[in-house]
């Protein structure tokens, strides 16, 4: 029976409340987008966890390489001037 094709995998993203981002909830199998939405609803929002669902075929996601972690993300660590605490403001100045 292994010769039979499996339903493809989809990634599910749920917006838990209006005003919030969609967040990755997990994955599931579905033959098409419509059933992926329905299955996501039944699998990931049974306890009112969502108000909106995105489904994406897992195969369509491009992810960064773990091996690139250092070169992609470490350089940001030294750019401390991007953070407000980098700058000195006289104490008597307020609302800034």
């Amino acid at each position, binding site marked *: 029976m292994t010769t039979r094709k499996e*339903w493809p995998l989809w990634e599910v993203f749920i917006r838990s409340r209006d005003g919030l981002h969609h967040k990755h909830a997990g994955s*599931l*199998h*579905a*033959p098409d987008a*419509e*059933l992926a939405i*329905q*299955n996501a609803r*039944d*699998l990931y929002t*049974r306890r009112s966890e969502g108000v909106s669902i995105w489904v994406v075929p897992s195969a369509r996601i491009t992810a960064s390489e773990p091996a690139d972690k250092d070169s992609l993300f470490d350089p940001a660590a030294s750019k401390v001037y991007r953070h407000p605490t980098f700058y000195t403001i006289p104490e008597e100045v307020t609302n800034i």
Partner: protein
Amino acid sequence: MACSIPLPPPGHPRKYPEMGGREGGEGWNRRQKKATPMNASADHNDALFRYLLRLGDTSHILCHRLGEWCGHGPIMEEDIALTNVALDLIGQARLFYQYAGEVEGKGRTEDDLAFLRPERDFNNLLLVEQPNGDYAKTMARQFLFDAWNLLLFRALERSTDARIAEIAAKAVKEITYHRRHSSGWVIRMGDGTEESRTRIVAAFEQLMGFTAEFFHMDDVDRQMAEVGIGPDLESLRDPWMADVEAVLAEATLDWPTATWSVLGGRHEGRHTEHLGYLLAEMQSTQRQFPGLNW
């Protein structure tokens, strides 16, 4: 023979021949009394009670059938989906039974009504007591029912009975989803593989004859329609046929050729033989240990 209802193929004028007038039968379960001036409101209550039982029984029996699939579905995602439908249905059944118990005023609870009535007193649609069969039969049964149930509950949303209207308003959202799920499967099976097509065609042939009950009115239904509690069931026929035809068309299927049709469950408690076994199982714990809390 009085209720042989050949359904027209798509494109033909959608009209059922008038159905035989069996509804006046003297099934012993019938609570309707002849209306007399003295007990007009008692008569109304009886009819309302019966009407609510029909709604509750239909939801509960279908829930029960879907529950039989739990753990045995074709893929776990469908186990979850079908169980969700079952949970919606049991929720609806409970609300109707609770209300029915209040209307009857004899202190019967939802569980008394569900677990302690005999087969002849059950008024679910014949369609929903039919065994699950394969997934095609389950989905065909579900779709035929969902399409009708959605129309019914949309009408019940406008019921003059506030309680029914409230139950229906909540249920319509659920049933809208049920119909979406089941119609999707009818389309996938009809326009899927040779095997799925063969199976879904066979399923509709086996089940269509039970849909005559959807539109058949008896005194209780008429009484409810007169006071605006429920719709004229006959008025659901055209929109139902249009919906089913459209889905069948998308599924590349023709209207079933079977011309037989039967009535009996919803009005008279005359069921197919399947219901008795279902109830024997469903009621077994309550029957073995009468009068206990669970």
